[in-house]
């Protein structure tokens, strides 16, 4: 299972990298979103998969839990990545509105024209 998950994250990272290298801003942003999915899956995989119970204390007879720490990390990461995605989206939108393009090559600035 772990190996499968890591290969899956590898595929996601490949896709995300390809998207980030694109010319259009929208693709770049989408690429970063895919990156965060990959990162979340990777973190939870690193904690070990299905090795115990849900990390909620309750029944006395259950004593092994899956690692709660990666989960806490991911929870934080999910919210932050949402905020960052929103910010970058708005930045792209604003740049498009002011400059009339979403093409990275045209956004380079006048110095290199």
């Amino acid at each position, binding site marked *: 299972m772990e190996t499968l998950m890591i290969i899956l994250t590898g595929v996601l990272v490949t896709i995300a990298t390809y998207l980030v290298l694109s010319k259009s801003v929208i693709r770049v942003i989408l690429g970063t979103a895919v990156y965060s999915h990959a990162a979340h899956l990777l973190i939870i995989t690193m904690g070990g998969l299905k090795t115990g119970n849900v990390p*909620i204390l309750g029944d006395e007879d259950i004593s092994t839990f899956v690692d709660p720490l990666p989960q806490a990390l991911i*929870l934080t990461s999910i*919210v932050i990545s*949402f*905020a960052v995605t*929103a910010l970058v*989206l*708005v930045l792209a*939108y604003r740049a498009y509105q002011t400059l009339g393009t979403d093409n990275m090559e045209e956004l380079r600035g006048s110095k290199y024209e």
Partner: protein
Amino acid sequence: MKINNVILRTVTKISVFIILTLAVYLFFAGHNSPGGGFIAGLVLAAAFVLLFLVYDMDTIRKGIPIDFKKIAAFGAFLAVGTGFGAFVFDVPFLTQSFDYFEVPFFGEVELSTVTIFEAGVSFAVVGVVITIILSISEDV
């Protein structure tokens, strides 16, 4: 964005309340079962987003006359403030405490300063999410 969809509107009217109730439940359940400030805030935000999508902006504005930026700021203030509150009791920053009380009808109830912190988190999440979505969609 004028959407004319009677079915969606009717379903929304009911489901929004279910979602809101879920949010409140998640908030209070958070410490002992799945849930918590973040999730509650997000679910709350999702409910509002649904409203904004289904009805047009002005109607909701009238119905819920809240400035979400202020909510966000208030939430962050609350979260940071509980941290400083710890100083009053001469314990390190952000130290939380809890105790159990006997309340009639409900039995033993846990009261914790974490709840205040979590409330701050929820408010901040709701405020920020709605602010982001509203700012973008209002800017036509």
